[in-house]
């Protein structure tokens, strides 16, 4: 495949920018926020160098950026934006609006703590708090995955007509340099057809969007949105498989790592999956039957895949770098709900690990595994790290 790509050394955010360039996004409304800025700076550089033809709109707020994303998308062009933390919070109203509008925007969110207090650290609470906004959500663990997932997200979003947000974490991924395969444009063009929605804001068509609806119409609209979201699982699997055919890289909507005969499976999302993969290897080497479930696609929640992987596994240890006061870790809650009623389902430990970006080393994680294997899970979340 190397003749159809080039390998470069870039940080995670720049890798995202390469993905956006390859997707040939036409309108990019953005507002700067640490640690998202390198994505937009790189896109600006591409534009300045003539490598990318794009309308960059420097909005006065994330709210306006998202507002512009929606209409640009409805006008029938491919749209990208990026944000983090408070910016995502400010967008909240428009996130609902975007999915209601069935606008297949792709947004990159660099997971960062939400104030107050102020912090700049990796934490997934910002995006997980948007899980009910009707957006497809992907969590990535490195720059390569982020680049590839941006392109997959466009393919899925534009097929099911729902917006998609792709995440990686602040600094650990966003600013970490790594080697990244950048596919050639023709590869991407083969993968991602020109965006040409049949319904759009176009005087030649004359259709309007957003007129007030009655109760029945609202019901129908929400039901249709739900059906589209459901269908996104299959479309996402197909998109991943197709990407593998073209580039050899694939991630699955979930990743099942060394789960055969596992007594315990670590379940996590994002950069924590890298640490967990190393921990699994170490513990397997030490003779402990441990595996990893990485949940990449969080919305729609890959219910069937999760149940398939964890059926017959005695124990799951969920590591959440996020926190919802009153319930605990997002993945912990979602996973327990997903496993409910599974006859040979596991018991679930829910550990709040690395919240606020605190370091979780493979050694520490291995200790938690041993502890979890030795104890019965608490009813609620347990603070670790």
């Amino acid at each position: 495949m190397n003749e159809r790509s080039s390998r470069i050394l870039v940080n995670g955010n720049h890798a995202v920018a390469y993905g956006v360039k390859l997707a040939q996004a036409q309108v990019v409304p953005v507002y700067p926020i640490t640690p998202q800025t390198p994505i937009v700076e790189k896109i600006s550089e591409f534009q300045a160098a003539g490598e990318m033809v794009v309308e960059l709109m420097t909005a006065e707020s994330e709210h306006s950026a998202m507002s512009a994303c929606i209409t640009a998308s409805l006008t029938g062009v491919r749209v990208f934006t990026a944000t983090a933390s408070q910016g995502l919070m400010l967008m909240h109203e428009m996130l609902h609006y975007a999915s209601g509008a069935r606008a297949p925007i792709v947004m990159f969110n660099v997971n960062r703590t939400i104030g107050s207090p102020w912090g700049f650290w990796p934490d997934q609470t910002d995006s997980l708090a948007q899980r009910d906004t009707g957006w497809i959500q992907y969590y990535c663990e490195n720059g390569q995955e982020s680049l590839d997932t941006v392109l997959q997200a466009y393919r899925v979003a534009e097929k099911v007509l729902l917006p998609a947000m792709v995440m990686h974490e602040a600094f650990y991924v966003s600013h970490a340099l790594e080697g990244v395969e950048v596919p050639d444009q023709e590869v991407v063009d083969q993968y991602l057809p020109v965006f040409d929605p049949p319904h759009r804001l176009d005087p030649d068509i004359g259709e309007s969007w957003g007129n007030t609806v009655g109760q029945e119409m609202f019901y129908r609209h929400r039901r249709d949105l739900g059906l589209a979201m459901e269908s996104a699982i299959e479309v996402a699997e197909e998109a991943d498989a197709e990407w593998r055919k073209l580039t050899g890289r694939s991630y699955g909507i979930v990743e099942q790592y060394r789960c055969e005969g596992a007594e315990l499976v670590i379940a996590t999302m994002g950069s924590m999956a890298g640490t967990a993969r190393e921990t699994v290897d170490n513990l397997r080497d030490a003779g402990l039957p441990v595996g990893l479930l990485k949940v990449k696609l969080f919305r729609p929640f890959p219910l069937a895949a999760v149940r398939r992987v964890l059926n017959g596994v005695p124990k799951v240890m969920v590591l959440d770098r996020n926190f919802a006061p009153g319930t605990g870790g997002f993945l912990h809650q979602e996973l327990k709900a997903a496993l409910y009623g599974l006859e040979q389902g596991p018991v679930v430990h829910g550990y709040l690990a690395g919240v606020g970006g605190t370091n979780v080393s493979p050694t520490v994680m291995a200790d938690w595994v041993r502890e979890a294997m030795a104890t019965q899970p608490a009813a609620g979340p347990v603070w670790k790290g």
Partner: protein
Amino acid sequence: MAEASKVVPSIWTTGWTDILNTGTWRSAIPVHQKRLAPCHVACPLNSEIPTWIKLAREQSYQEAWLALVADNPFPAITGRICHHPCEGGCNRGEYDGAVAVNALEQYLGDLALREGWSLPQPASELEQRVAVIGGGPAGLSCAYQLRRRGYQVTLLEARSKLGGVLREGIPQYRLPREILEGEIKRLLALGMEVRTNHPIEAKDLDSLEKEFFAVFLAVGAQRAKTLPQFPAVDARITDALHFLAKVSQGTVPSLGRQVVVIGGGSVAMDAAASARRLGSQVKVLALEDRESLPARADELAEALEEGVEVIAGVMVQSVVSSDEGIRLNCIGVSLAGTVPAAGTVPAGVLEPILLPGTEFIVLTGQVILAIGQEAELSGWDSVFTVGQSLVKVEANGATDRPGVFAGGDVTTMERYVSTAMGQGKKAALSMGEFLRGEFPATGGSGAEGPDPGAVVSYQEINTFYFPPTSRENKGNVAVEQRLRDFREIKIGFTSQQALTQAERCFSCGHCMECDNCFYFCPDMAVVKDASLPEHYHILDQYCKGCGSCVEECPRGAVVLKEETR
């Protein structure tokens, strides 16, 4: 799943609201209709004033004149002497001064005479013959309207020339002879038989009825009123009727240095001003006080300018006639609170209260009595009912003798030329109905006045669309010039003055296709429709009945009608 993108999301709006029926919200609907302008209603001839002014405004002068002469064959005459109640009714009067309708009328009338425009010939000839007795304003107007409709008209005039009061009563400085002759000549060109020197008495009616299908009687008020204080036979005491007739014939004797005119009306002013032109010093003694003189204010002002002395609020108690002259013993009077109870005293008779201590004496060589005139109706009461000094007619001009109609001064005390012409016109219309066999048993035609709501009021005018502009009046010839002879004293409008004045007309109740109703409709429920005389129609399905079209119509040509559903 690839089909997901092909399914129409339920959120796109693909249809249009014009399938919705917002007309059901409404409780009233606007109606475009031609409504009555107050000038038109006030005009004794019911002239279509807004119509001809509109044409004048468009500088379609001949069309304007044709619209004008449809009701009035003598615009150059009435344009000079009409008392113009149209201007009193004009809605613009409440705003920035009434439109100078009378001057505009004169402008068109004079233009027509200069250009030699003809009255339209009847569209078809009818065989029925009609007689008009009296060639004054009422008779000529009636004859004209009958002739226009194709009837064969015979005019019977007692004197040698047509015109009546126009010729003999109105001084030439108000109505130049060439104007009178021009308009009468043009009328006669329509083709009618004229028998001058042909007085008619009551006994002639039977034979007339054999010759003619219908008869109109308009012999005017020919008998001057007298006052008992004045000697009946004294060459130095005359009446205005005879005096003015003689002046008009150019046979007036020398008046002497001092002339007194008794009376406060238009005729008194005319007599006084004529006497001034003949070189006399003139005093007018009037019963009424200065503010309530029956003469028009402009007539009074002109007389004063010309040096006539007006002594108002006085009466002559006794007259002493001698060779040295006539001594008038006068006294101040008050008319306040002396309105006679209806039916007890003849209408128009005033009961002055003498003011002791205000006595004075006037010495003069000549007295002209200008205290009114009456119809000479002796004998006529044998052929139809004659009331108190007037022929009794229905509102449509019919006497109680079938086929006989009457109008002008024999039927009214109003004594206005235009009123007489209006009666002539109205009678002609009734005679037409009579001749066609459509005549109601007890003449109802035109009996009722217009419904007050049918006339456009000032409140219905949207003055935003009429920036204030001033009224202009006809000019006056300088006084010294006026006193030299009997040449006309008023200067008619220039074309620019006429146009400026025509532009001031509100065109009350007359759609000018300004499209305001169309442009101010938030529901696009007013549609321009060239096929309709009203120019617009309302879309029943959409109109919500807000009334903006009514409010924004500058001239009250749209009304809101309540609907019951």
